[in-house]
Each structure stands twice: as structure tokens, then as C-alpha cells.
């Protein structure tokens, strides 16, 4: 990996869970290489077909319809860089794209064209694999750190050099007086449940979310 190592030598990376130190390094790489265009023209370890399939896969895993492909391509370019530095990563990604093909019964190049439900079904079957988790960790850290995706989320980013937000709306929220009281309304709750590590429980009815004992 072409990153500055920060005393990470000898660290073991465990499967499952986001390896935050890796994440930090990925973040730094973005910072030190702002010219990265995201093009998949000069891949170093992966072939075009694998890389393209990964672009479709990352989008299917983290679908933001407003985001152009270039942002997902950058994630895959970063995976390619890791694969170039670490043969195990290259094998994991290449095999993983193979699993995607097996699971869907389609060529990897067709994954992006499958109906969303079919994509999700395949990904759900793969979600516990180290392949899926390595890709997920990269997307989570890399995609949302790209400065030019932030406008899509309404985030304005670095501020100190602009004088902070003091004169740029730090206290401009103006709808509070008119905000409805929704204490008795059905309000969706997403719970990252701390007692089992399974997928979030999504509850869409207030009645369900706030069971009798909690009330």
C-alpha cells in the first residue's frame, strides 16, 4: 500500500468489524492524493471486468442515486491499490467477484444490470464473507470522505479557513417554532442494536418501536 505507515506494522487485521486504523490510513491517502480522478484506466492489480463488477457492486451496496459513478470508481481504484500491495487482497476481490457470479448465475459484467432486488438478494447471501466486508469497509470510509460528494449530502466541510461557520449560518435554523410535536405520531426508528450484532432492526411504527414496557 502506498501510504505512510503510522506505526501499524505488525498489526493483525481481523475479519469482521471495521478496522479503523486501516480506515484512518485510507482517509489519509485520500487527503494526500487529492488529484485522484477515479478513472479505472490504469489498474494495477485487478482486471477491467473485475473492477467494473466491483463498481456495480459498491453502488448496489451503498446506493445513492444522485451520485455519479466516478465516486464508486474511486473506491474501486483504492481497492485496486490495496490489491496491488497485498496478494491476499487481490485474491479475495477476484474470488469474491466470482462468488457474485455464482450467486447470481450471471456474468460479473451483468451484475449492474440486474434488478435491484436480485442484486440485494445476492449481496445479502455474501454479507458475512470477508470479501463483502472488505469492500464495505472501503466504501464506508472512502466514499463518504470524498470532498466532492459532500455537497450531495448538504455538508460544507472544512471551515476554519473561511472564518468558521460563525458568519455562515451556524445558528440559522428558523423552523423550530412551527415544528410539529410528533410524540404520538408513528416515527420510524433505526436501532443499531448493541445486544446482538445483527443487521439493524428497522421499525416503522411508533407503537412497535416503543413497546409497552418502555413507555
Amino acid at each position, binding site marked *: 500500500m502506498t501510504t505512510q505507515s503510522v506505526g501499524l506494522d505488525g498489526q493483525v487485521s481481523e475479519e469482521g468489524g471495521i478496522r479503523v486504523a486501516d480506515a484512518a490510513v485510507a482517509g489519509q491517502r485520500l487527503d494526500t492524493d487529492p488529484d485522484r480522478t477515479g478513472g479505472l484506466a490504469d489498474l494495477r492489480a485487478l482486471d477491467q471486468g473485475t473492477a467494473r463488477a466491483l463498481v456495480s457492486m459498491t453502488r448496489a451496496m451503498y446506493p445513492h442515486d444522485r451520485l455519479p459513478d466516478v465516486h464508486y470508481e474511486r473506491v474501486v481504484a483504492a481497492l485496486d491499490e490495496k490489491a496491488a500491495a497485498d496478494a491476499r487482497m487481490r485474491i479475495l476481490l477476484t474470488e469474491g467477484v466470482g462468488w457474485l457470479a455464482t450467486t447470481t448465475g450471471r456474468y460479473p459484467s451483468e451484475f449492474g444490470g440486474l434488478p435491484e432486488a436480485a442484486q440485494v438478494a445476492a449481496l445479502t447471501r455474501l454479507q458475512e464473507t470477508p470479501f463483502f466486508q472488505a469492500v464495505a469497509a472501503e466504501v464506508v470510509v472512502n466514499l463518504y470522505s470524498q470532498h466532492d460528494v459532500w455537497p450531495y449530502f448538504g455538508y460544507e466541510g472544512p471551515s476554519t479557513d473561511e472564518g468558521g461557520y460563525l458568519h455562515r449560518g451556524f445558528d440559522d435554523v428558523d423552523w423550530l417554532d412551527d415544528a410539529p410535536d410528533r410524540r404520538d405520531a408513528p416515527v420510524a426508528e*433505526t436501532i443499531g442494536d448493541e445486544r446482538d450484532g445483527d443487521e*439493524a432492526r428497522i421499525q416503522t411504527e411508533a407503537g412497535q418501536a416503543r413497546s409497552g414496557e418502555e413507555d
Partner: protein
Amino acid sequence: MPAPFDLTDDSVVVVIGSGAGGGTLANQLAQKGIDVVVLEAGKRVEPEEHVDDEWPAFNQLAWLDMRTNSGTYRLAEDFPNLPAWHSKCVGGSPVHWAGCCPRFQDWEFRTRTVYGEIPGATLLDWPITLEELEPYYDRAEANMGVAGTHGMPLHQPDNNAKVLFEGARRMGYQKYSTGHYAHNSVPYDGRPATVQDGFCFEGNRSRAKWSPLVSDLPKGEATGHLEVRPESMVLRIEHDDAGRVTGVVYADADGAEHLQRARVVCVAGNAIETPRLLLGSASNLHPDGLANSSGQVGRNYMRHMSDTCWGVFDEPVHFYRGNTMAGIVEDEAYHDPDRGFVGGFYMETIHLGPAFMASFMNPHSWGRDFTELMDAYENFAGMWLVGEDMPSATNRVTLNPDVTDQHGLPVPNVHFDDHKNDIDMRDYAADRARTLYQAVGAVKTIRTPPFPASHNMGTARMSERPEDGVVDRWGRAHDVPNLFVSDGSVFTTGAAANPTLTIVALAIRQADHIAEQLAQQAL
């Protein structure tokens, strides 16, 4: 002799770690004319070099050395190598911190008495009282510059705080404000007023936020009595046959080892590295680790009850504009067993940028459930729930013999199981938080599991009796006359309050005591 000091100079006080505890202590001693060498594992990153960008800043400032995690708590699964979030840099974790500065309440020093015996918990009364600490709280606030105290005005509420306040008002809460916050609301102590930059967790380019990096350390250095040696990782503490510590061995940036002699050693490496260093300094005289005749070193590790609630609203909040945690509701910080748990908690504003939000909001989540929430980012408000957690003998820091770090030392393993009380408080607090945001129109809420611990406490706890803890009422090791612990490790119990103000107050008090003892030739 003016700083820098010689390795063989055995008249110096060596302070290990330059954070809230160590940085404060070092400056207080230097101001009294006592020569101090601070050994700090991290680099000196001046504010001009800080970056308003989450992962790069984290990488620049955070402790990333290898650690392992075990136990049944969710974090062991989500972040197997990151039990805690604290700094490795000159100035320590206050370079990363937000600045919330509540004081402990009086009964929080006496929880064994007030809560009674709780199975699975190792509650113990502190050997000191609020009354004793109050003058030092005053000095700590004045030293740091805490808005809302000593004449410094409170901060103006930012968007996130305004949402919190309106929700709090509708809930019937009384005590909500931007709170005591160690970040200048007006120019103070040669540092400017806040520009509401929103990057408290990423250092602070403007110096408006207190940390030893911008305050205590340069002040101490100006006296000629303080030398700060960055990139100096202390590997072990040495002692003589009489049981007095004589110096410390540290590795410099190139890995070369040096022995710095010392008259007094003060350990302030934060509550994971401090016990690790004590355990790693075992000897014939101290077979279970230095200052560990009680067996308490590393035990009673506390990280605070922690939960986070994000409210998603119909309209934009832009919660990332403004001071990260200047917004607090104090109404729930009381003790009433009728709520189903002991101890209290605070609600404090928090925001994350998209980068951290994606990593922490709901680890392992993916698909449209996840991205639809991220797409609503601009309409988020957020609060962090922080409350007292129970010390437990089995929640502990140990040395992991199977994994070594870049220095060849066994890494610390953090074992943690949530006490039933923590879970009950967390569920209650999460429900209050969700209700508060609904009261002000939230269309969705999100409950985020605990982050890697930013509040680490209790692993070298203060006790009246030597068999109950590691240090006495001054932070001096029960077993070793010239060894002190000067950070959050000394907390006997954790209270609901964010810990740093108390760490700083204790460090100022300890400096007075050490100076007195040195003057009396008692050290």
C-alpha cells in the same frame, strides 16, 4: 539548570503523557520552579497543521497502536482493535476533545454509600469529597477558560443546540444551555474567541479550544523548567531495591532506547496505557506489576454509559455548523432508583461529518436502509448520551501475550461486559432522547451503538485503603512513595460528568501536593 535536561539528571520530575492530566501537572510544577521532563509518545502537531477533515485528522492525532478487545459488549465486534478513541500527540486527547466541562455532583464521590452494594459492581467511595475538590475545580476552569464560569459568557447556541433546546423545552426540562465548555466564547488567555468552525474533534486550528498543546505546555516551557520530549514512548518504569522508582526507559522516534533518571515519576498515559505500563513494569519486587500489590491495576475499567440519538427532521438543520458539543441538558443527571437504575446521565449535542457518520452511525449496515439515512444528513440533529457506568473487577485492561506492538511489547487487551445497570440506563436514556426529538418534529430517529471509548477511567483507582485500589487521595501509589498516577485512571467511580475537568482539577491539586512534599524533602 534550564531545560533541556540531561538523561542522567535525577532531580527532575518525569511526567509520562502530555494530555489533560500530564500536561496540566507538568505546567503547574514548572510554574513553581520544579524541573519537569514530559515524555510523550506522540508527535508535536501544532494547530496550524490540524485539518478540518475527519479521517485525516484522526490519523494525525489518534492513538492507532495495536490493541485488542474482548467481552460481550458490542464494540468488541464493531471495532475489534479500537476499544478507545484518544490521542497520541503532544497535548493528548484534549487536542481531539470537544470541551464539555460539567463538575461531579457531591453524591457522585460517595456512590458506594448512596447506591449501596450492587452485585457485579465494585463501587467504592472516593477518598475525597466535592468540597475538597471545589477550589481546584475553580482553578481548573480558570486555567482552561471554561465558558459559563468565572465571567466567560456562555456560547451562542448553534443549530444543533437550538433543536436540542426546543425539544428540551417541550419535554418540560429546565436545565438546558450551551453549558460549561472549555472553548473560548470571547478572547481569553491570549487565545481568540471561537469561530464556530465545527471541527472540535479534529484539533483546532484557531486555538480557541483549550488543550495543553496551546496552553499549559507552552506556558510551562516559557519558565525554563519544562522540557517536552515528543515521540518518546515510555516502555517501562525502573526502581531500586528499596522500592523507589529511579527512572524510565523510553524509545525515541527511531526506536532507540534511553533511560531518563527521575526523582519522581508521574504516569498520565490515559486509562489504558497507564495500567499497561504499570503491568509491563513488573519486577522481582513487584511480580504482578508495579504498584499492584492490591491486584487492582487494570481493573474497574470504566468508559461511561454511552448512546447516541440522531433525529431526522423535515427541514435542514445543518448541525455540523458550530461547536461540536456546546449544548447540554442536565435534567437527567440525578440519582433515583425508581427509574430502574442508579446514577444519572447528560444529553449533549454531537455532530459528525458524513465520513464519520458513515462509519459510526450503524456499523455493518448497508443498502437503502443505510443510504436513505445518509441522504438525509443535512436534516440531522444529534445528541450523545453520557452517564455513569458501574466499575467491575472483570472489566479490565490486561497485557495480551499473543500480540505485540511495534516496540515488541504485549499490547493491552480491553475486556468489557456491559453491566445490567448500564444497559438499563442506556435504554431509558435512548427513549428520552428519541422522545425529545419527536417532540420537536423528528420524522425518524436513529440509535447508534457506543463509540470507541473517549472517556477511559478507573484502572488505577484512588482508595482510602491500599487493598482497595492503586493510589491514595493524592494519586500517589500506595506501594511506591515517589510514583504518582495523574490521569483519569485514578477515578474511583466515573460519575455522569465528562471526566476531563475533574482530571485537570486533580492534577492541579496533585501538583500542589508534590511541590509541598518536595519542599519538605519528603520525596
